[in-house]
């Protein structure tokens, strides 16, 4: 299978410009800048069926086409390297081991959308990523792949690395913009969408690291090639992350049509200690749980949506039969309670309430009304908030209760008999 985003991982000094150039580095950017129009590039990316690999799976070419070319304001490209979705760790590998692939994609994308400035927002904990990205940018400026009139094309482009402060919500695109502007990460209401009102009130495209790292190969080898690798409306491969109860946790680049069963048993070495599968998170903690009867699903955006979950960030977490699902629900609920930004009442109050409720049940202090009330509390968060975080609490924690209700019931203290 031909590797795209991970093709250079593991090579000595893969992060250095000299290594990248030996590997046909910046040829795609040169081809785009000197031989294609912005409209042609957007068209090519549309045809490739490249979809956002941060979590939402929105068609990338379509997103770029929303930038109003006639708008006189400066345009911005923002790379979302906040990688906070539990179970996800793929972008870290691109940032650390192939930063120039991201830079090349940035150059092409900026040219396509008429932007001369890109920000790479990297989560503050990713120290090595921050260092490697800055070093790659310094090399690129030195050799004139960034700066004024790059690669003899007359196109100016600047790229700035920006560190986050440690807040999961800043992975949400509008919260990221707020954070990039020097404020708390409170998401914005959409519409207006960032393509019209984004960074500093200007038209902005925000894309995930892996998404943009695929742009160079698409320009080099063509949209048709990329589209064919995947499934019908979901082109290319994907960097799948797999962790939890598996023998070989790690990043695996595979076609989008790969099944969850293949991922767990063929690639990640199956479940250790002779245990059986009990449940699996297919796309980061926000994705509803799947049960063992559902693992023949293909891991593309449309197939996972069809069975009531989501491909999300590609972060797969496997749970074996030693897992107490009420405990697992408590861990998830605790995550959401900690990471709620606090802006919307249903989420600020509801996420904490869900966590305290599930924790009470887990520790054996739950009464029947605690379990009966739980779906009502969980279901009234999603759909009532400014951003999708509220929806994630509802879908994700809700799936533990709906699919493993019997485990919750088993922990409920029976009401004492009345005399």
């Amino acid at each position: 299978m031909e590797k795209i985003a991970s093709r250079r991982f593991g090579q000595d000094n893969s992060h250095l410009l000299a290594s990248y150039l030996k590997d046909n580095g910046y040829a795609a950017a040169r081809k785009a800048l000197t031989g294609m129009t912005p409209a042609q590039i957007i068209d090519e990316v549309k045809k490739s069926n490249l979809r956002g690999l941060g979590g939402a799976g929105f068609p990338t070419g379509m997103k770029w086409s929303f930038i109003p070319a006639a708008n006189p304001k400066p345009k911005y490209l923002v790379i979302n390297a906040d990688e906070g979705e539990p179970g996800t760790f793929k972008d870290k590998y691109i940032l650390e081991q192939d930063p120039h692939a991201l830079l090349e994609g940035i150059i092409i994308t900026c040219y396509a959308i008429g932007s001369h400035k890109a920000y790479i927002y990297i989560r503050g904990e990713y120290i090595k990523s921050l260092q490697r990205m800055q070093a790659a940018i310094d090399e690129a400026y030195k050799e004139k792949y960034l700066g004024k009139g790059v690669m003899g094309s007359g196109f100016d482009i600047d790229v700035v690395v920006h560190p986050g402060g440690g807040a999961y919500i800043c992975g949400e695109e509008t919260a990221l913009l707020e954070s990039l502007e020097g404020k708390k990460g409170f998401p914005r209401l959409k519409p207006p969408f960032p393509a019209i009102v984004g960074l500093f009130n200007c038209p902005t495209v925000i894309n995930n690291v892996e998404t943009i790292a695929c742009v160079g190969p698409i320009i080099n080898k063509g949209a048709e090639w990329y589209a064919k690798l995947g499934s019908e409306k979901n082109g290319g491969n994907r960097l799948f992350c797999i962790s939890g109860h598996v023998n070989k946790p790690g990043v695996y680049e595979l076609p989008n049509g790969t099944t969850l069963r293949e991922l767990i048993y063929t690639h990640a070495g199956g479940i250790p200690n002779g245990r059986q599968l009990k449940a699996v998170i297919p796309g980061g903690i926000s994705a509803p749980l799947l049960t063992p009867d559902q693992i023949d699903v293909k891991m593309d955006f449309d197939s996972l949506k069809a069975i009531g979950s989501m491909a999300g960030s590609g972060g797969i977490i496997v749970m074996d039969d030693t897992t107490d699902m009420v405990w697992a629900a408590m861990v998830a609920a605790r995550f959401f309670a900690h990471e709620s930004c606090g802006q919307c009442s249903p989420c600020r109050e509801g996420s904490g309430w869900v966590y305290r409720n599930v924790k009470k049940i887990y520790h054996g202090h739950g009464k029947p009304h605690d379990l009966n009330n739980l779906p009502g509390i969980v279901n009234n968060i999603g759909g009532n908030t400014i951003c999708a975080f509220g929806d994630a609490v509802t879908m994700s924690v809700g799936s533990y209760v709906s699919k493993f209700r019997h485990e919750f019931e088993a922990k409920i203290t029976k009401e004492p008999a009345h005399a």
Partner: protein
Amino acid sequence: MFSAEFKQELDKITNKYEQKRAALLPLLHCVQEKEGLISPETEKNLAEYLGIPVVQVHEVVSFYHLFHQQKLGKCHFSICQTTACALRGAEGIIDYIQQKLNIKPGETTPDGKFSLSVVECLGACEIAPMMQCNKDYIGPLTKQKVDELMGKNK
């Protein structure tokens, strides 16, 4: 007031942004790297430097968990407790460290050598259970590995 030389150092960061205020997070990281914490004095100075109200600096400092208003120990353990790490024994590691250092999450040892935090997903589930020790990601953690780390940082 920041000194003129320090302002020049900050200008190098601020000049990368189209709006001054956007430099706030990297500026906070820069000061914290130097001084080990964000003091009320720093908040006032940054507010003055950026031309924004102090409260807008303070609310950013209190919103983001990487900014500390108190000095941490020489060695800061941030242990991940989210799902993948939890499935692979994070709770046991957290308990072990609390026991050995005799501090709770959010506290620092009296000799100032170790601080403990419990955090959410650090993006390193493939080496679960793991922690960030100052700048480094370390995992998979075992009691033995923890003993080694503590020994190295005494």
